[in-house]
Structures are given as structure tokens and as C-alpha cells.
């Protein structure tokens, strides 16, 4: 498993994810601006923002503890691992065996716990408010996300992401009703987990409605840059999970470089379509009150449970 070629392919995939994630965020922002009849920001804006933030001097609150300072690095590390274990270009990657679907959810939970703790560290009203809301979204979204992943793993008989994707990619092109339900549930969960409309608004300036942004209020400079980059990576990783589970065709299998070269443009097309879809969803829906979020995520959870039941009733 741990061969030089495998590790090289793995590092390539990781570097691509790290470098391309802000581009994907830029693309989503661009599509959204188009749909809302605004003039779109350039595609490379997220990189400029990151560059600017890295150059700035961070201002730390006087009572910030070391926990506050290491959290951006930890979250960035978590999201890198997440991007590395999701099969994006190739299925047989060495890190895949380190963490399966359950560990992937655990990884996101680790990042969430650290982010919430860091938000509570300064002791401001908005920070604790954001932490509380984020943890609420977390405990509502996590079961739904795992049920989606479990449906896929029951179909393929494995919780390892590479086996799931390999299995689903090799299946004949037919519609699995369970996967259709799971797909809808997954989309709803990803909206919530990535702090998108209708659960949260990444572009909001109104502190009282913030969730994710409220936790970042005290961050600045390089710390904020890492947090923003990690958020892009998270969005990228979620999109890749969605692609890998629901449109797994064209992902290379076997670790040869030719396959990876072919799968790269395929992935780009799929991501472009996914980003467009995300922008569309965000443009046509309105932000919900925070206590509508349990209903929203409860629906996602029920859909995921339905997907699992349908799998047992119709497909096994």
C-alpha cells in the first residue's frame, strides 16, 4: 500500500486540493454574482485575499490563550487530511486506509470542536454565540451525514471510502433510488456544514445571524487566512465527497499516472457543475431563522434514513 508511487500520487492530489480549493470558492462566488445580476469578482480574488491576510500583522486579543493561536493550524491540517482521504482523482491512495468514512466524519468533528473552543477562548458574546450555534448544527448534521455515508457503505459493503467509490464506480449505470434520496440529504447537510444559505450566510455582515463568521470575528492576519483557506478546503472536500458518492464515473483506479491525467479534467468539469449548482441553490433560497435549522436538518436526516430503508426494501 505504502509505495513511492502511491505516496507521490497522494501528495499530488493533496497539493492540487490545497491549491485549487480557493479557486473553487472563487468560482462559486462568481456564479452567484452572475445569477444575482451583479458584476462578478475575478476568479482569483480568494487568492488575493489570502495573500493580503498572510502579509498583515495579526492582532490577538489580550486574553487569547495558546489554544486560540494553534487552532487555525490544526483546522487547516484536518481539512488537508480530509481532502487527502476523499478519492478525487484516484481511488487507490495510501492515506485512504488511514481513515474511512466514519473517521472522515470524526475528522470534521475534530475541526469543529477546535473551532468552537477557539471561538469561546476570547470570551466575547458573539464568539460564544457562534460556538453554540455551530455545535448545534454539528450535532444535527453529523447523524444525517453518517446515515448518508452508511447507505453508500451498505450498498458497497465497506466503510472505506476508496472501496465505496470503487464499487459505485464499477456499477452499471442505473438509478439507485436509495442513492437519490441520500444525494438530496447529502446536499442539505453540505449546505449546513459549509455555512451556506439557507442555514448560514458566508457573505453576511449582520452579527446576530452569523454562525461560522461569528466564530472567526476575533481572528486576523495569518490566522484568519488559514481559517478561510480551511473553509475553502472543507467546501472542496465536501464537493468531492458528493462527486465521489453520487457521480463516481471517471475517477482513476489503480494508481497509474495516465488515469490521473484523464481524471483531472473530468473532476474539473464536475466541480464546475457542482459549484454552479451550489450558487443556484444559494441564489434561489432565503436564509432561515436559526431554530428552523433543526427542521431543515431533521428533514435531511429523515431522507437519509429513508434512503437506508429503501436500500433494504428494494435493493437487497
Amino acid at each position, binding site marked *: 500500500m505504502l509505495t513511492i508511487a502511491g505516496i507521490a500520487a497522494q501528495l499530488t492530489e493533496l497539493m492540487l486540493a490545497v491549491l485549487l480549493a480557493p479557486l473553487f470558492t472563487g468560482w462559486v462566488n462568481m456564479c452567484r454574482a452572475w445569477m444575482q445580476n451583479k458584476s462578478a469578482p475575478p476568479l482569483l480574488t480568494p487568492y488575493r485575499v489570502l495573500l493580503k491576510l*498572510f502579509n498583515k*500583522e*495579526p*492582532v*490577538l*486579543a*489580550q*486574553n487569547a*490563550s495558546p489554544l486560540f493561536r*494553534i487552532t487555525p*493550524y490544526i483546522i*487547516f*491540517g484536518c481539512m*488537508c*487530511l480530509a481532502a*487527502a482521504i476523499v478519492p478525487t482523482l484516484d481511488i487507490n491512495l495510501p*492515506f485512504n*486506509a*488511514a*481513515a*474511512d468514512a*466514519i*473517521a472522515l466524519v*470524526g*475528522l470534521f*468533528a475534530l475541526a*469543529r*470542536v477546535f473551532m*468552537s*473552543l477557539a471561538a*469561546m*477562548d*476570547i*470570551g*466575547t*458574546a*458573539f464568539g*460564544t454565540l457562534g*460556538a453554540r450555534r455551530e*455545535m*448545534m448544527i*454539528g*450535532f*444535527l448534521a*453529523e*447523524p444525517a451525514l453518517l*446515515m448518508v455515508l*452508511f447507505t453508500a*457503505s451498505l450498498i458497497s459493503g*465497506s*466503510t*472505506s471510502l476508496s472501496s465505496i467509490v470503487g464499487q459505485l464506480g464499477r456499477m452499471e449505470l442505473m438509478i439507485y433510488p436509495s442513492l437519490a434520496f441520500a444525494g438530496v440529504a447529502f446536499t442539505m447537510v453540505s449546505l449546513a456544514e459549509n455555512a451556506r444559505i439557507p442555514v448560514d450566510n458566508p457573505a453576511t455582515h449582520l*452579527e446576530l445571524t452569523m454562525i461560522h463568521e461569528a466564530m472567526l470575528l*476575533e481572528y486576523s*492576519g495569518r490566522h484568519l487566512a488559514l481559517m478561510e483557506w480551511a473553509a475553502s478546503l472543507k467546501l472542496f472536500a465536501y464537493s468531492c465527497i458528493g462527486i465521489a458518492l453520487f457521480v463516481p464515473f471517471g475517477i482513476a483506479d489503480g494508481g497509474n499516472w495516465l488515469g490521473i491525467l484523464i481524471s483531472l479534467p473530468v473532476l474539473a468539469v464536475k466541480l464546475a457543475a457542482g459549484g454552479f449548482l451550489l450558487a443556484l441553490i444559494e441564489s434561489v433560497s432565503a436564509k432561515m431563522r436559526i431554530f428552523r435549522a433543526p427542521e431543515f436538518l431533521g428533514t435531511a436526516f429523515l431522507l437519509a*434514513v429513508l434512503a*437506508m*430503508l429503501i436500500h*433494504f*426494501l428494494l435493493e437487497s
Partner: protein
Amino acid sequence: MPLQTVLAVIVLWLAIALLGIAFARNLRIVAKILFPLGAAGALVLAAAGFAATLGGTASLVLPLGLPDLPFHLRIDALSGFFLLLLGSVSAGVSVFASGYLRPGEGNAPGLQCLYYHVFLASMALVLVANDAYAFMVFWETMALSSYFLVVSDHAKAEIRSAGFLYILIAHVGAVAILLCFGVLQGGTGDYSFDAMRKVALTPFWGTIAFALALAGFGAKAGIVPLHVWLPEAHPAAPSPASALMSAVMLKTAVYGFLRVMFDLMGTQIWWWGVIVLAVGLATALYGVIFSAVQSDMKRLLAWSSIENIGFIFAGAGLAITFRAYEMRSLAALALTAMLYHSLNHGFFKSLLFLATGSVLHATRERSLGKLGGLIHRMPWVAWLALVGTLAIAGVPPLNGFVSEWLLLQAFLFTPGLPQNYLNMFIPVATAVVVLAAALAGYVMVKFYGVVFLGRPREEKLVDAHDAGPWEKAGLLWLAAGCVILGLLPVSVIDVIDQVNRQLLGQGLGNSSNWLFLAPIKPERSSYSPLLFLAVVALVVLATWYLVRHFYHGRVRRGPAWDCGFPFQTARMQDSAEGFGQPVRQVFEPFFRMRRELPSPEDRAPRYRVTVEDHLWHWLYLPIGRVTEFASTLVNKLQQGRISVYLLYSFLTLIVLLFLVR
């Protein structure tokens, strides 16, 4: 040999207990000599337990007890595993206790030393008992010694009533266990466990024995609805005692349940497992939801223990069902998950209870709403508690995640059971496990964030001091346990597998190498915490280096921004009640809630919300009322006049004469 070693440690502990009385008021000797000695004994006990999991069984007859009724003792892999848990956890707790004892807190230090070490010894004896008589004697010793630990601060009325509730439910449970043994001996009249293993019960009597075992051991473990004593008794006890009760004593109940279900009872019916599973899941969810709304830090941890016991029983339920269907490798997976979780819970829960003890000593405050910002004042306790917090929140790469992962794998493997409905609903029941686990993350963020992070909510917290060297050593030992159990799951499972082999005749085995945890088949699922940690740590270090190298490491300190709001005070942070508000709202039907909201014109507004347990009002208070009513009826017999009592004796005599005639 392990059995003799265990006995030697027990004798040592009892001797320490007696020496404690001799030096009752001498804090120096008790804290700095007796407790560390007990900790050394605990380490030896852990080693003996480990040896017992490797070696075969050994038994011994101890010529104590009643005439013709000696104590039978036996050590095997199952008791060895729990002795390992007891020894390794209590070593840390005892070291901590050396630094924790203070004059003028509750009982004299020597008395605490007595109860504490008798408690330890009785738990070890419960784990090696091999007949019902010895088991019950040790079990009751355990209940009584822990009762005296709970009421250590007996000057307070609420502590006395917590102790009363504890001893009451402990005895209801003990009666159920006694009856269970009565059924298990199957009419042979031989109460040794060896005889019980040979008895084949009919399904009817087997079911009765199962129900009694579940109720009896469940009462001690704190499964819903027998959990009410736990949130009362654990906070009342001094912190080392709460740590021991939560981390180890609850596990002796788990041990007893496993001993009865997997060892003593030959009969197996699949739906017993389903009942245990349902009870376990209900307990887990109930516990974690209540844990989220607590505002006393020890009470929060006590409710969280209920949640973890729920997970452990859910795993046991799955194992029972799998074994009844002869799917032994899957039973081994479920059993591994629950044993692993027992061990994990032992470490992280004792770590957190002890950390609250340090906080309590440093601040004299147990209420979350009056703490905050302690990471600056007590960095050692805070950073070590962070390990426990992450472990209990079930995030990788620490130990809580490993057992959760195994439990979820066991749930996912259920398709393949001969029952279609089980096939369908058990994976769906996984959702409850995941929900409870995610809520545990919420609870722990609340606990850690409110106690250690943010700004101090009270003026006096500025004087809080860090824990002393003994306390630090104890915490460090337990935190190291959390990390090691999290990073080396394959080695831990090798030990647990010996228990599987004993109880199921088949081990789980790890089909991959030491780096990857891969039960059953590597392509089905695998997890490698070391690789996981290595990648995250490498990325963290590389990022840190690159950012410093290409940009700068400058940083400026300033006042907190908070969106430019200048008049912020520490009181504007979330209180414990505020942090629990989403859970109160989402899970409203679970609570019996009373809110007092002031009107907008109120000049001196008071906001109050009380959250209570429905079960207390639906189950316990009615039973209490019925008991009280019955006792008033009986009371009518007592007229307080000697002639009436003589009349009773006379009537009894007449009736008896009539009957025996």
C-alpha cells in the same frame, strides 16, 4: 500466580485502610505515604490483571466466611481485563488523591483512606469472586464503602439525601442480583459459579434470570430508568471518589452483567440482546441530553457517565444477539467495542472528574456559571483536561473515537442476521448512536469552553492556582492513558481478544498489520490513528514553518474586538444555561421545564429556568407516595399501648396453633 498477586494487593489495601484509622488525623502520613503506597499496589494489580488475560484461569478457595461456606475465587481473562482497568485507573486516582486531601473537608483523612481502600479492595474482590455468596458479600461491601465516600461531607443535608438515594437503589439492585443467582443455580442448591455454568435453564427461567441481571446490574451501572442516583451521588462525593465510582464502579456492574450473560448462563435468546440494545440506546440518548443542560460541572459529568454506560450496554446487546445466532466473529466485534469503551471511559471520565476536583479546590466553585478563563490560571489542569475533553467528545485520534468506531462498525455489520426486521432497524438505530456521540461533542465543548476558556466570570477566579505536583502526576497518568489507548488500538485489542476467546470461543483478530485497525477484513474498513495523527501533525508543522518562512511571525496584542462593542464584560459570555439553550429547545419533550420570565416593565427582573427529569416525577415520586401510604396503613397497627401488642401476640399464637395443628 496472578490470583495470589491480586490477593496480596487486596491485603495491602486492607492494611492501608487499617493504618488509615491508626493515623486518622495525620494528613502527612495518610496523604504522602498511604495513598502512594495504594497507587503502587494498584499498578501491581493492573500487571496481575494483564497477566491474567494472557494466562489461563486459576482458582482458589479462601477459608473465610461462614462455616462450610468458604469464598471461592477465580481469575480468568474477563476478570483480568477488568482488574487491569481497576488497577490502571485507580493508580492515577490514588496519586491524585495524595495531593487532593485537605484538612477540614468532610471526614478526617484517615477515615477517607479507610473507605477509599476498602472500596478498592471490595471492587477487586468482586472481580475475582467465584460463588454467589462471596460475590454478594463483596458487592455489598463495595456499595457500603462507596456510600460512606459519598456522604463524606455529611454535614450537608443534600449530601445525606443523595447518599440515601444511592444506597436505596443499590440495594434494590442487589436484591435483583441475589434473586438472579437464585434462578441461575437451577434448583441444585449449589451457589458456586462452577455449578451455575453446568446448569441449563429453560427459556422461561433463563428470561427471568436475564431480566433480573439487567435490572440488578443496570441499577448499579445507571441505565434508564434506574439512573437517578448517579447525578446525585457522584457530585456529592469528593472528586477522587466520584472518579472511582464513575470510572470503575460502574464497570464492575458491566463486569457482572457480562459474567452472567456470557459465562454463567448457557441459554441464549436473540431478543434479549435487542432489549439490552434498546435500553442502552435510550440510556445513551437520555444521558447526553440531560448532560447538555446541566450547570454543575460534576453533575454534567455524571450524566455523561450515564450516556457512556448506554453505549456500553448497546454494545453488549449487539453481542448477545450475534452470539445467540452463532455469529461469533461479529459478537467478538461488538464485545470488543464495549470492552474498549469501558476501558476508555475509565480513563477519560476519571481524568475529567479529577480535573473538576482541582478546579473545585482552586476556586471553591462547582457551578459552571461562575467559572471561566482558567486556562490562564491553571494551565496544567486545563491542557490535560483538554485531552480528556477531546477523548470523551469522540474525536480522532484519541481513545473515545476508537471504541465509537468499533461500535459503529458492529452496527453496520448487522445485515446478515437471519431476522429481516433486525437487519433493517439496527442500522437505522445507528443514528441514535451517532446523535448521542455528536451531542457528547456539544456537551464537552460546553464543559471545557465555559470552565477553562473565555474570561473569568467572577472576580475571585483571578486567585485560582494550578494543581500541585501529586495532582498533576495523577492527571498526567490518566491523560497519557487516553492518548495511548487512542493511538495503539491494535495492541489494546490483542488484550481484549483474550476475553473474546474466553467468552465466545473466538477472537476478533486483526487482519491487517499493527498500524491499521481493520477488524474482519481490511477492505471493509480500516483506521490508523497513528497515520492520522502523523499527517495532521506534519501538515500543521509544515504550515507553521512555511507561514513563518515566507511571511512573518509578528503578532500584536490588543483588546478583544467583538465587532467594535466597547462595553463588554465577562458576564456577556454564554452561561452554562445559555449554552444549553439549543438543546433545551430541540429536545423540549425530554425535560420537565419551568420557566420564570420577567415582564418587560419589571424593575428587578429575575429570569429562572429549572430543568427536571420526567422519570423522577412519573416513576419515583409515585412509588415514594405509595410506600408512604402503605406505611401509614401499617402505622395504624401501632397504638403504643402494651395491651394491644399483647393482643397481637396472642392472635398470632392462635393463628399459628390453628395452622400447625
